[in-house]
C-alpha cells in the first residue's frame, strides 16, 4: 500500500490505518525510538504513542512522505520520554514527580519560548546543512536526527566509521562557528 493510500485511511477515520502503519513502519519507528531510549519497552510505548499522534494529527496533516512524518513524531515522543525518565531519576522528589505528571496535561510539553527558539535555530541549522556536501549532511542528519550508531551511518553512507567520525567532528565545529555568526549564543 502506498503512503497516499494510508494517509487517505487516516483521513477517512478508518482504524485499519493504524494496523497498516504498524505493519509497514513498525520496525522502522521502533528503531528510531530504540536509538533514543535504548529500552525495548519504552520504545514500544513510544511507537504506540506515535500511532495515536498520527491518528490525532491526520487530518489536518497530509504528509507526502509518511515515513518521515511518522519518524518525526516518534523522535519527539521518544525524546520527551527520555527527558521525563531522566528527570525522574535525577530528582526523585515528589515535586519532580508532580511536575512530570502535570506535563501529561499539556499537548506539547515545551514552552512557547522554547518552541520559538527551537524553530529559529532549526531554520539556521537547515540553512547550514544545505551548505555542506551531501555525504557530510547525510552523516550529520543520520547521527543527530535519527540518532543512528556510527557503524550504521558508515554502512548506509558507504564510508568507513573513522571517516564518518571525522566528518562529524568537523561539522560540529563548523556548526558552532555558523551559529555564532548567525547571532546564537552557543
Amino acid at each position: 500500500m502506498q503512503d497516499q493510500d494510508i494517509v487517505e485511511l487516516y483521513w477517512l477515520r478508518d482504524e485499519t490505518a493504524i494496523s497498516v502503519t504498524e505493519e509497514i513502519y513498525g520496525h522502522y519507528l521502533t528503531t528510531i525510538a530504540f536509538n533514543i531510549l535504548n529500552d525495548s519497552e519504552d520504545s514500544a510505548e513510544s511507537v504506540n504513542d506515535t500511532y495515536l499522534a498520527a491518528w490525532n494529527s491526520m487530518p489536518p496533516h497530509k504528509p507526502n512522505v509518511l515515513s518521515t512524518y511518522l519518524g518525526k513524531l516518534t523522535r519527539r515522543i521518544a525524546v520527551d520520554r527520555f527527558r521525563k525518565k531522566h528527570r525522574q531519576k535525577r530528582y526523585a522528589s515528589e515535586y519532580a514527580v508532580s511536575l512530570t505528571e502535570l506535563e501529561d496535561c499539556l499537548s506539547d510539553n515545551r514552552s512557547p519560548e522554547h518552541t520559538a527558539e527551537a524553530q529559529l535555530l532549526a531554520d539556521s541549522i537547515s540553512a547550514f546543512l544545505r551548505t555542506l556536501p551531501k555525504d557530510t549532511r547525510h552523516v550529520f542528519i543520520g547521527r543527530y536526527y535519527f540518532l543512528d550508531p556510527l557503524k550504521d551511518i558508515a554502512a548506509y553512507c558507504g564510508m568507513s566509521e573513522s571517516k564518518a567520525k571525522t566528518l562529524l567532528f568537523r561539522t560540529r565545529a563548523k556548526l558552532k562557528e555558523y551559529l555564532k555568526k548567525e547571532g546564537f549564543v552557543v
Partner: protein
Amino acid sequence: MSLDVLHDAIGRIDEDLVEEVDALRRKPHQAVVWIWIRRASVIAACAAVLIVGAFALSHAGLLPPFVANFSVGSLHEYAVDDVNQAVVEYTTPSSGETVQGDEYSYYAQSIESIEESAVTVEIIAWTDTGCHATVLESADDLKDIHVGDTVEIAFTDDILTLFSFDGTTIVAAERAPTPADLPIGTTALLWHKRVECVGDTVTIYAYRISPAYETK
C-alpha cells in the same frame, strides 16, 4: 541556548533534508568491504584500459616504444633517459645476470635482444636528409619492415646518436648521425617513432640510433 533546544531544533530541520537521509537509511545498503571491493575493481579496470591503450598507441607509432627501453637492460634505460649519467652495471636481458658494463657487451646484447620498434640495419648510402639501409633484423616484424628490404632512414627532431660506451658513461650527441659516425657498411641499431610508406618507398623515422658492435 540549552542542549534540549538544540536537540529539538535538529528535530525540526527541513523535511526534505530528513527525507533524503531517510531514503538512504531505508535502502538496503552494501557492507563497506563491498564498497571497497567495488572501488578497487574500478581502479583495476581503469589501469587495464590505460595499459592496453598505451600498448595500442605504441604499436601505432604514436608513442615512443617503451618496451624496448626496458628490455635491453638498465643500461639502455640510462642511455635513453639521461645520456650522461654514469653507469656501473646493468642486467643483461638474455641471461638476467647483472654485469659490470663494458662497451662491447652492451651493444652485443642490444643486437641479440632487439625488441619492439628496434631495427638493425646496414647503412648502404647517405643522402641529404638521411640514409638508405638494408634491414638485417626486425624483432617486431612490422608489416612494412621486412628483413632484406631497402629502406630510407630519416631522423626526428629529437634524434639522439649514441656512440661508444667507455665502461662508465654512454657517449651521446643530441644530433643526427653523420656519414663519419656511421660509414657505409656499418651495422646500426635504431629505434623509430613511425614508419611511412609511399609507393614502394618505406621511410623509418628514427629517434635513437647507434652503431652496433659484433660480439667478440
